[in-house]
């Protein structure tokens, strides 16, 4: 990669030399990548590779020990490592969590409305008296939330307490909540984990819709290779905190280093193949 930061219009997020150690363990080691506007960029890698840690660095939960992270959401770049998590959300980055962090004792609608928090403008006293401005802001918020509910087919669950929802629906609500923030960059942490085949299909369609219809850039951590190859524009493979390979899905999946990290050496792979019973090669 060239040393100069290439600030062109397509660059949305730029990570350079990110490192983070927990105690003695180097969870993320010198990771650099670029995310371009409007693309779906996926991080893959075996468990423990540091993918979620990279997410947590981007959303401000952990500060990196080394490295820079610049976000070009609105023209002028801003360094994310200087910002607190709530300020990062204000720049237009939204995320979902691997283990689902919904607001259990609120309804789905409430969860989604909270997702819109960064857009709320009314002052404290205006809210206490519930002035016309506040009322109109509420209606606007609800309109927007409705459009997300429609996109993700959550009408049936609108007023249900999250605590009573099945896992698959919770994952969708998690996604919906992130979308309600109207982000420019959406971080999805293992969107298909725990979902069955149909639900994963739906997720693939939604991610594509999010990219194409809503124009949101998606940065995703994922294990399901079929989902990855279907929706991703570019893939970044990690192992043990370091970059393994990056490129298009096809390029990364056929990269010998990647295959080795997932399956053992490339030689082993050929030995795993069953002999074709009909004799043809």
């Amino acid at each position, binding site marked *: 990669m060239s040393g100069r930061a290439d600030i062109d219009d397509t660059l949305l997020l730029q990570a350079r030399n990110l490192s983070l150690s927990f105690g003695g363990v180097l969870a993320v080691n010198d990771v650099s990548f670029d995310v371009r506007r409007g693309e779906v960029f996926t991080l893959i890698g075996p468990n423990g590779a540091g993918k*979620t840690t990279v997410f*947590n660095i981007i959303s401000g*939960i952990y500060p990196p020990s080394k490295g820079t992270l610049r976000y070009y959401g609105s023209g002028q770049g801003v360094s994310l490592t200087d910002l607190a998590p709530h300020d990062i959300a204000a720049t237009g980055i939204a995320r979902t*969590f*691997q*283990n689902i*962090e919904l607001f259990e004792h609120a309804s789905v609608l409430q969860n989604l409305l909270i997702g819109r928090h960064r857009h709320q403008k009314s002052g404290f006293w205006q809210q206490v008296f519930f002035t016309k401005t506040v009322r109109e802001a509420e209606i606007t918020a609800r309109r927007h939330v409705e459009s997300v509910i429609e996109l993700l087919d959550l009408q049936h669950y609108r007023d249900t307490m999250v605590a009573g929802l099945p896992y698959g629906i919770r994952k969708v609500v998690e996604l919906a909540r992130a979308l309600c923030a109207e982000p420019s960059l959406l971080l999805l942490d293992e969107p298909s984990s725990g979902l069955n085949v149909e639900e994963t299909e739906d997720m693939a369609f939604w991610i594509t819709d999010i990219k194409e219809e809503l124009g949101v850039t998606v940065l995703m951590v994922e294990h399901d290779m079929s989902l990855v190859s279907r929706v991703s524009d570019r893939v970044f493979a990690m192992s043990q905190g370091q970059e393994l390979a990056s490129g298009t899905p096809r390029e990364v999946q056929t990269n010998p280093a990647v295959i080795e990290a997932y399956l053992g050496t490339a030689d082993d792979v050929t030995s795993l193949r069953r002999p074709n019973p009909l004799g043809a090669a």
Partner: protein
Amino acid sequence: MELLQLLVSGIAQGCVYGLIALGFVLIYKATETVTFAQGDLMMLGAFGGFIAMSAMGLPFWAAAIATVFVMTLIGIGLERVVIRPILGQPAFSIIMLTIGVAYVVRGAITMIPVIGTETHPLDAPYAGKVIEIAGLVLAAEQVVVILVTAALSGALTLLFRYSKLGIAMQASAQNQLAAYYMGIPVRRINGLIWGLAAAVATVAGLLIAPITFVHANMGFIGLKAFPAAVVGGFTSLPGAIVGGLIIGVTESIAGFYLEEGFKDIAPYVVVLLMLAVRPNGLFGERMRKKV
């Protein structure tokens, strides 16, 4: 010399705080619940000892052993009836429940005709005796408190660290469902823990009764056990004792050198300082959530 004298009485008082905090930490370590009932269980134990000695005429040591035994059963019973159904609910509910239990115990004791509302002495065989060491005049009660506390906390620390039971207890505290899957008899262990905590509280009550006498408001001493646990760290058994000692000594010194009223708030000022500087206490473990 005065200072040493103050230190010793602070240490003795601190041992009692430490013992109550010990029961408190035991329960927290095993079930991650905070209990406000320890102080009143201590009071119940002290009354039990008094009743065993006066109404039943038992000599001190027999009364002590019998009381500890009965209180252990009461602790197990308490867990069975009141705590078990509630595990898994938010921590605040459990705290309120233990506050309720404390009220019930205190109310019940106060309702016993004649005995409940009076203050009674507890005639320990060593009461009133005095020991002189190196110019220091120590009350025998204080020495007994210190020795028993040391022995008990040592035994419990070993139990938790080296026995299977101790490890099983910690497992069921951190993830009860997983502990069930691993074949740990979670419910039996929880019962044991509460029984043990009640026993420790009883010992504390019997130790302090010769000094403060037995009365229904003894339970408020239990409030001081919280600062002790915070200072020591909620998950550390030796920490509970150390925390108790620190609080006891601080109180003792504050009572002597500072104006009136500071003695009562000294432990709480220490709590605030501790929470500001080192929320997990001196010996507690740091844990963070991974998302």
